[in-house]
Every structure is written in structure tokens, then in C-alpha cells.
């Protein structure tokens, strides 16, 4: 087990910079999730750590060793690929034994190690099967088994759940978390799914355009997003954004609505006076209407989800989504008055889109 650090890590293809100077320290035994939209550089970063891509600049350390120029086999890492990358002509046992054989582990030691990993993952009865005879979830577990038997310093997961259906994804996600709790090895996990990031990570690294947008625990990135991008990326349904201006301790939204700017952000009211801002409100942070702390808009669409109801309503030129109690069912076209807790709203600078509070 080992720590991992990236210092000024760069990756370019000709003039195209994919990863732009990433600095990140990952502690031993930590579960870190790299998350971001397609093309943000998360998979490239992981592949550079694995040694499958060369680096264009900076430094990668695993433990105390600089591994910039080391081939993958000398980095003591194990990787679970998006398409599992199981050898189709080998049985599950042979897939799991391959890396151990290559590394010259004695046959007497290979068998118990595979048996132990197979038992941990519940694939003991599948050892004689070929990958083509396995379901998606079973293949995923075999891919994890192949990584576990190596007992590497760091586990790398490259979007391992993206080929599974929603139900199976939930199950395997739990298994990965359980696995980390059981073996405690450092895990670096890449995904574009914010739910996976929130549920699995000790810390989340949110990437955008090859740069780190924010690093923090799931609570930190949810409660204190550093930018409009992070606010919109983390959370489902996504955070609502509406443009406004701070005037006399109140937020005046484009389109005329106003709410009081008090509570957590009250102290900053003077500093923000006259400034153009973007207000972020999570759908689940709307509540009962109160005088001075409410927004009104025409209901556009109502989506009953059973456990709660999503109401989409217009506020000026923006459409906001509120997640409310299931029994609340306004009709489309009605004027909705809905409460907002100022202490739970997020303020971003309209020009830089960085957080103000």
C-alpha cells in the first residue's frame, strides 16, 4: 500500500494540452475518485499513473518512487478496465493467475491466493469458466479478482461500472466499497458518474478541461462547491442557476423576483453590493414559502417520482427545478410560490463563475 502524488502533471498531444499541470497528493489507503465530463483528462491522468501513457511534464510518485519512466509492470499497480480486458481464451482461474505466473510466484502460492480472492468476491464456482460464459457483473468481479490477487500498492479503476445496467451498477458499487474496507489499499477510481463519486470516495477530485476544479470530501463538494461547474456537476437533479444582482442586502433576480440575502451570506452583503452574481440553489433546498424568502414562478412541468415530486418552474429567463414532497402537485400554468433558505444558497461571481461564499 502506498501514497500517490502528482506534481505539475502535464499531457499534450502536439499543441493540444489534455492535462494542464495537475497537483494532487493521495494518502495511503485513501479512496480517491477522479470525476468530470468526457474529455476532462481523468482517464488520461489514470493511464499516465498506470504507465500506459507517457507524461509530457511534471512528476508522478508512487510511495517515495518517481515512476515517470517506469513501464507498467514495474509500478506495482493493478488496474480494472472499463471493458474488463479479461483474456477471452483463458478461464477465470487462468485470468487471475496470469500476473502471478508472469511474476514467477510459485504455483503452490498461486492457488490459495486465487481461492481467497474468489471467496471474497463470490466467484469461487466460476473459476473454470471462460469470460464469454459470464454475465457482465460476474466479469466485473473477475476483473477485480485479477487485480486483488496481485496485492499491489495501488488499485486503479477506469470507469469500471459503465458497461453495467443501473441495478447491477448499484450492487457492484457496494461491492467495491466493501472491498476497499476489507483490503484497505489505495484506490484511484475514474468515473463520469457523480453518484459513484459521491458514494465511493473519501475525496473527490473534480476535473474540467485538464485542470482540477475542486478537491474535497463528498460533503465538501456538495455543500461548498468551488464553482458553477462543480455545483452543476455534483448533485442530481443538478443545481439551479439564476443570474441576479445584490441590491440593498437582497438578491434581485433577472425578471424581477427578489429574496433577502441573510443568514450565512449576510456578512458579505455589503461587499457584494451592486455585484452581478449567479445564484445556485439545489432542487432539494426549496421549502415552504415565507415572506421575503420565497420565489414565485409559473409551473411548466411536474414530474411525480413517488418518493418526491420535481417541479420545473420559470424564473425570469431561467427554468428552475424544485424537489418537493410527493403530495405537492401544482398544475402546469399555475403560479408557484416556494420558499428558499438563504443559508443554503450558493453565490458565484458572474464573471469568473467561482464561489463567493
Amino acid at each position, binding site marked *: 500500500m502506498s501514497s500517490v502524488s502528482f506534481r505539475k502533471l502535464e499531457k499534450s498531444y502536439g499543441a493540444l494540452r489534455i492535462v494542464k499541470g495537475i497537483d494532487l497528493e493521495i494518502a495511503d489507503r485513501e479512496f480517491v475518485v477522479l470525476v468530470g465530463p468526457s474529455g476532462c483528462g481523468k482517464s488520461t491522468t489514470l493511464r499516465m499513473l498506470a*504507465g*500506459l501513457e507517457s507524461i509530457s511534464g511534471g512528476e508522478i510518485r508512487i510511495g517515495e518512487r518517481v515512476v515517470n519512466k517506469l513501464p*507498467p*509492470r514495474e509500478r506495482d*499497480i493493478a*488496474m480494472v478496465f472499463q*471493458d474488463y480486458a479479461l*483474456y477471452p481464451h483463458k478461464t477465470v482461474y487462468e485470468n487471475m493467475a*496470469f500476473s502471478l505466473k*508472469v511474476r514467477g510466484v510459485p504455483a503452490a502460492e498461486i492457488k490459495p491466493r486465487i481461492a481467497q480472492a474468489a471467496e471474497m468476491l463470490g466467484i469461487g464456482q466460476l473459476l473454470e469458466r471462460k469470460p464469454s460464459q459470464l454475465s457482465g457483473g460476474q466479469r466485473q468481479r473477475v476483473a477485480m479478482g485479477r487485480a486483488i490477487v496481485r496485492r499491489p500498492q495501488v488499485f486503479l479503476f477506469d470507469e469500471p461500472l459503465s458497461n453495467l445496467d443501473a441495478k447491477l451498477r448499484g450492487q457492484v458499487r457496494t461491492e467495491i466499497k466493501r472491498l476497499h474496507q476489507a483490503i484497505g489499499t489505495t484506490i484511484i477510481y475514474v468515473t463520469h458518474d457523480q453518484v459513484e463519486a459521491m458514494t465511493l470516495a473519501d475525496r473527490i477530485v473534480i476535473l474540467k478541461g485538464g485542470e482540477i476544479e475542486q478537491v474535497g470530501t463528498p460533503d465538501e463538494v456538495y455543500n461548498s462547491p468551488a464553482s458553477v461547474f462543480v455545483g452543476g456537476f455534483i448533485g442530481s437533479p443538478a443545481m439551479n442557476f439564476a443570474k441576479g444582482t445584490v441590491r440593498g442586502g437582497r438578491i434581485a433576480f433577472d425578471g424581477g423576483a427578489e429574496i433577502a440575502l441573510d443568514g450565512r451570506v449576510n456578512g458579505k452583503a455589503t461587499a457584494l453590493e451592486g455585484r452581478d452574481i449567479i445564484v445556485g440553489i439545489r432542487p432539494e433546498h426549496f421549502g415552504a414559502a415565507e415572506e421575503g424568502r420565497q420565489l414565485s414562478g409559473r409551473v411548466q412541468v411536474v414530474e411525480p417520482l413517488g418518493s418526491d415530486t420535481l417541479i420545473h418552474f420559470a424564473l425570469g429567463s431561467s427554468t428552475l427545478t424544485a424537489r418537493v414532497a410527493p403530495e405537492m402537485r401544482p398544475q402546469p400554468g399555475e403560479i408557484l410560490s416556494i420558499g428558499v433558505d438563504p443559508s443554503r444558497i450558493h453565490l458565484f461571481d458572474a464573471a469568473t463563475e467561482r464561489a463567493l461564499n
Partner: protein
Amino acid sequence: MATASETSVVPTHNESATKWWTRFLDPSERTLAVLLLAPAALLLALIIVYPVCRLVWTSFQNLSLTSGVPAEFAGLENYRLMLDDPVFWETTWNTVLITLITVPGALFVGLAMALMANLPFKTKWPVRLSLLIPWALPLSFAGLIFAWFFHSEYGVVNDVLRRLGFEGVIWFNSANWAFAAICLTIIWKTSSFMALIILAGLQTIPRSLYEAAEVDGAGRMRQFFEITLPLLKPAIVVALIFRTITALQTFDIPFTMTRGGPGTSTATLAMYIHQNTVDFLDLGYGSALAVVMFALSMCVTAVYLRMIRAKG
């Protein structure tokens, strides 16, 4: 009030007519399958089954267009003659030898070419084109070109040998050298076909398998033997089937390079069939020889198919 079932029991004249047509137009699945397969089956019968049957039948006949005697049933006489015919044995042995040398030769050269063509070149078309050109050339054309290459006075091969300090070889005066020249030409001509099939197989192997193997600690050689070769087996077997069958039918290259000489030392079974049927007009004996060649091809195909099934 009439129910639906009552009305259907007593069909009108019109309805019964519809029923007859419906039966014709809507046959059972079995009849439909036979109807749909019939044109293809008939075509196959016409262009494959009939000629093969006719060939076998002719091989049982004494049918020589130069004898002036009408064709008569000769039973296994042509096959008995074959067993006592030294030229049959020599040409058959030459054919088998050419197959045994050129098929593995083309496989190894083709595999090497395919591996090279699969490298991540920035500009891929020159590599792919160099694979296609030998394959696209007519066999007899390749034979004529290489006959010039191996010419004892003006050939490029002897020129290179002399520049390197060796003596030139009179390639087509010696049975062994002539055989070697023919085999080299066949390998050059056919390895590109092997390479194309193997290249197609290589491109179906996902890159992630090699990445997984790299992370697992396997070097290039190990990756080749543990991943590339096992996953290429189906493509290689298909290439081997095609190549072996065409090797057993080798005709054009030795015909254009040596005409089977010196003597009959480089003549193949296909050339001997051609000689008997076209030059000597002995269709009965020629057909018997062709049946033997057909049987050889079938045996090889059966062995390869068995190999595929065993691997599957």
C-alpha cells in the same frame, strides 16, 4: 344471432377460393424454407455438384480423344494405371513438398508482415498497399517476373549474389535450385494474402488486452505468445485452409517459370492433369488425377475444420 364460429363453418364460395390462395401464398415454415432455399440449391447443384459428379464419372471411363475409340466404362482402370505411373508419384510428391514448404513459409512471412502493418504508423496506406500489390498480381505474371529475377545471366538475384562475392547459380538447370526458386516465388506471392487475413484478425484483438497484460507484467514476447497467437488462431486456420487448398492446386508459377523442368522435377499434380487433359486429350486419366487432387483438398479441409472445432 349468428356467432363468429357459426359463420366461419359455412364458407362462401369466395372464402374457399381465398383459402386455397392463402394456402399457396402462406405455406408452412418448412415448405417456405424449401422454396426459399431451392434456387440457391439448384444453382449450387448446377455449378458444383454436377461438374464434380461428371468428373468422377469420367474418371471411371476410358476416354481419350486421340484414340478414336468411343468412351467406355473402365471401372478403376485409370486409378490402377495411376498407381504404376512414376510421373504421378513424382508430381504428387512435388505438390505435397511445395505445400509443406510454402504454406508454413507464407504463414511466417505473412504473420511478420501483418504484425508490421498493425504497428501504429502515422501514414498507413503505403504499408497496406505493399501488402495488397503482390496479392493483386496475377500468378502467371508473378511467375514471369521471378523467372527474370532468377535468370542466370540477367537476373537480379545472381547480380546481388555476385556483388556479395558468391558465384551465380544457374537456377533452372538444377532440380533443387529450380524448386527453391519456385518456392520462394510462391511464398512472396502468397504471404500477402496470409498477411491480409491475419491483419484482419489482429485488428479484432482489443488494445485493452495488451494494456492489461502490460500491467500484469507481461513483456512483448509473452504478450505475443499468450495473447496475440491464441486469439489469432481462428484467422490463421482460415488462412491455412485457403492457402493449403491453393498450394495443392499449384500450377501457374512453376508452369511459367520452369514448365515443370528440368525433366519433370518441378512439375506439379495440376500441371500433370493439364498435360493429360489438354496436351494428350486423355480425359479419363486426367479426370482420375483430378479426383485424387480433389480428395486431397477435401482431406486437408476436413483436418483444419476438425482443428477449429476442437479449439472451439
